[in-house]
């Protein structure tokens, strides 16, 4: 399936709503998971015999546990407001990629089995049976949704296709039709502690290499502490930051900012992953199991602050869900949440985003920059969907749009925004979010990137933009892959903290712990 031939979409001056092309993205969907990857998550290894019965039962359970699912299934009036809002529809023209049509795959079965009209007048209200064809369509089209929530912004009832796609994926998992990419990764995350399955020694080596590299380059012993008990800050960052390009340059930036502030910080080998694919597969339980590792690390390492690196859905899970799932946050009245919250320093928001932290230091004049270091760049910022539409920063309205831009503008002179209807709450997804960042979905990833690429092309033409900043590990990986398909330089995508790293003036004298003394000897 990955070898299927397809055209790279052209980039028009204005995005035109395509005429629909039924069935153009039909297919088998991404690689299916096997017993090896299903088992650790508690899902059956292959499609179970009574899958239909089980699926309907699960749908019933989900709609009684999630108000979103129940209300969204009932409330859609098919007004069409969302039909031209999905980047996958705009890029592929498959009508089942229109948000309402995607939801209708699920809604038609809901109507057939759970509503009066659908039971007795199925044709009239478009109710359908959950047969093999329908299940295949679910698998295929619910893995062409990046759960970016752009449709929800424009829906008069706030119907969020992400909620429906999460529910559908959970039903699929429960009947044994899981997606390999997400479930394999989750298995590693909940057993080893990160999506790559990187054990503690490997992680330690990677970080030591990084320290050496930075010291060679700058002459300053920036540290990347691991499992240091009693540190003030526990940094939870996507594991892509440890090895992938351009992510690692962001990690270098975080280290420099911590170093310059003189704060004690650590990462955890037990919870070395910010990403939480439990959200993508819609499983509250799996998402919680992944998040509980972070809670345990915070308690074990006796930190007073928990901070999150540049990762979109990680920040959504951290900002919006951690307090619910694990009690990382404030305002708990139950034993479970209180235990941790008593340990955390209530003067800081918990969890805090690395951008909030750096922004705060900039506001308080704690960091000095030589902005001219970034003068060779003209920069624009891609609002990552989960950060933009599902979180906040700084506790001020729209802070999630304001803070990253202020940090970027503090470290570089040439900044322009892309077209307003493609940024902030209306931002177009990179095309690779929501568990789609796998090579077997390359066609939809490239087609789905078209709207973002189009807006980028316009600022490239008009303003000479040559650098695209994102604060999401998935966006960074996706852009590295798709930029060249649209005639951009794949290296134009950078972390916000890479720009910080390049401009920051490091002048603080070393702290005198033994580790850094050793390092100093090496340089001398």
């Amino acid at each position, binding site marked *: 399936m990955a070898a299927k031939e397809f055209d790279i979409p052209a980039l028009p001056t204005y995005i035109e709503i395509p005429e629909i092309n039924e069935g153009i993205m039909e297919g088998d969907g991404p690689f299916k998971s096997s017993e090896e990857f299903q088992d650790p998550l508690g899902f059956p290894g292959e499609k179970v015999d009574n899958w239909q019965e089980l699926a309907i039962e699960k749908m019933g359970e989900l709609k009684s546990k999630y108000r979103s699912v129940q209300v969204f299934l009932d409330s859609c009036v098919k007004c069409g407001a969302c039909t031209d809002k999905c980047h996958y529809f705009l890029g592929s023209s498959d009508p089942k990629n229109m948000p309402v049509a995607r939801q209708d795959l699920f809604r038609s079965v809901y109507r057939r089995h759970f*509503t009066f009209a659908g039971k007795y007048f199925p044709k009239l209200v478009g109710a359908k049976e959950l047969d093999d064809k329908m299940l295949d369509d679910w698998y295929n089209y619910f893995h062409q949704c990046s759960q970016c929530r752009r449709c929800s912004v424009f829906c*008069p009832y706030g119907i969020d296709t992400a909620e429906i796609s999460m529910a559908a994926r959970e039903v699929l998992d429960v009947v044994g039709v899981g997606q390999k990419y997400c479930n394999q990764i989750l298995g590693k995350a909940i057993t080893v502690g990160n999506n790559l399955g990187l054990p503690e020694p490997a992680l330690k080596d990677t970080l030591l290499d990084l320290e050496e590299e930075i010291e060679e380059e700058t002459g300053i012993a920036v540290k990347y502490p691991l499992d240091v008990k009693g540190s003030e800050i526990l940094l939870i960052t996507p594991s892509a930051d440890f090895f992938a390009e351009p992510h690692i340059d962001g990690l270098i930036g975080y280290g420099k900012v911590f170093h310059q502030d003189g704060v004690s910080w650590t990462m955890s080998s037990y919870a070395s992953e910010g990403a939480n694919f439990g959200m993508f597969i819609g499983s509250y339980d799996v998402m919680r199991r992944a998040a509980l590792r972070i809670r345990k690390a915070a*308690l074990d390492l006796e930190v007073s602050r928990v901070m999150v690196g540049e990762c979109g859905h990680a920040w959504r899970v951290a*900002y919006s869900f951690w307090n619910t799932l694990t009690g990382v*946050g404030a305002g708990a009245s139950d034993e479970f949440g209180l235990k941790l919250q008593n340990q955390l320093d209530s003067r800081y928001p918990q969890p805090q985003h690395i951008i909030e932290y750096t922004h705060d230091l900039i506001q308080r004049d704690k960091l000095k920059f030589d902005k001219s270091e970034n003068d060779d760049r003209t920069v624009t910022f891609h609002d990552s969907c989960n950060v933009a539409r599902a979180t906040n920063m700084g506790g001020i309205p729209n802070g999630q749009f304001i803070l990253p831009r202020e940090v970027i503008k503090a470290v570089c002179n040439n900044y322009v925004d892309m077209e307003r209807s493609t940024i*902030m709450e209306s931002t177009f997804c990179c095309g690779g979010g929501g568990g789609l960042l796998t090579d077997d979905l390359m066609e939809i990833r490239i087609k789905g990137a078209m709207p973002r690429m189009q807006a980028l092309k316009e600022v490239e033409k008009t303003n000479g933009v040559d650098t695209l900043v994102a604060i999401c590990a998935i966006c960074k990986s996706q852009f590295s892959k798709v930029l060249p398909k649209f005639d951009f330089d794949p290296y134009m995508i950078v972390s916000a903290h890479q720009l910080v790293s390049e401009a920051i003036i490091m002048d603080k004298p070393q702290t005198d712990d033994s580790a850094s003394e050793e390092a100093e000897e090496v340089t001398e």
Partner: protein
Amino acid sequence: MSAISTFFTALFYLSLAIFLIGMARKIYQYWVTPAPLKIPTAPTPLTQTGVVMRMAREVVLFESLFKSNKWTWLFGWLFHIGLLLVLIRHARYFWPGDLPEIFLLIQPFKYAAFAMVIGLVGLVGRRIFVERIRYISAPSDYLMLIMLLVIGVSGAIMTFTNNHTDVVMVKEFASGLITFNWADMPTEINLLVHLFLVFVLMAIFPISKLLHVPGVFFSPTRNQVDDARKKRHISPWALKQEQSHEVKLGETLGEDK
């Protein structure tokens, strides 16, 4: 009482009962179904007041729809505001005795019927002529609009053309339904069609997409305060699960390795 009047009287109570019981059940269902996670969509309100303002803009102005598509917004809003004004005007039929003076203010708004009909025609047109919307439309989606259109047009015919009905008699019939003093109704075809469809619409309200009316108020992406870090938000089932979960509080307090 004539057979027709008896039939319509019975149909009214039947429809009303279905409407009230059905809506109560649905609203109860929405009410008790928890929203386990904080999922407000940007731009998010950070306070409860902000949520009230957002909901008010959404319900009164159709803010999100306006952002999305100006034509759909225009037709949708015209229809809804027209319907609202027309409905308020109809209070004069159901109100036993003289109407409170405040309702007199609404009387000039009889032209709202045109807004309603124009809006509906626009919405039907979009459904037929815009390929994407045609693709997502089920027969019931057309039927609903056509029913509303027939209701609107039959009402307008009685108001604006020479096919007036005996409004005094209508008032006796309608207010009689409220006070249980049942009376005969006029039997012009326009009125019969008008009332029949209104009663049918009432009955299908709780089993159709008309549930968007209560639904919007319960939509978690619209009615939640964006304060997840400040306040622990947890659903009853999640709390229960937490208490009996395999990972208990004590077990997360292991020694650092």
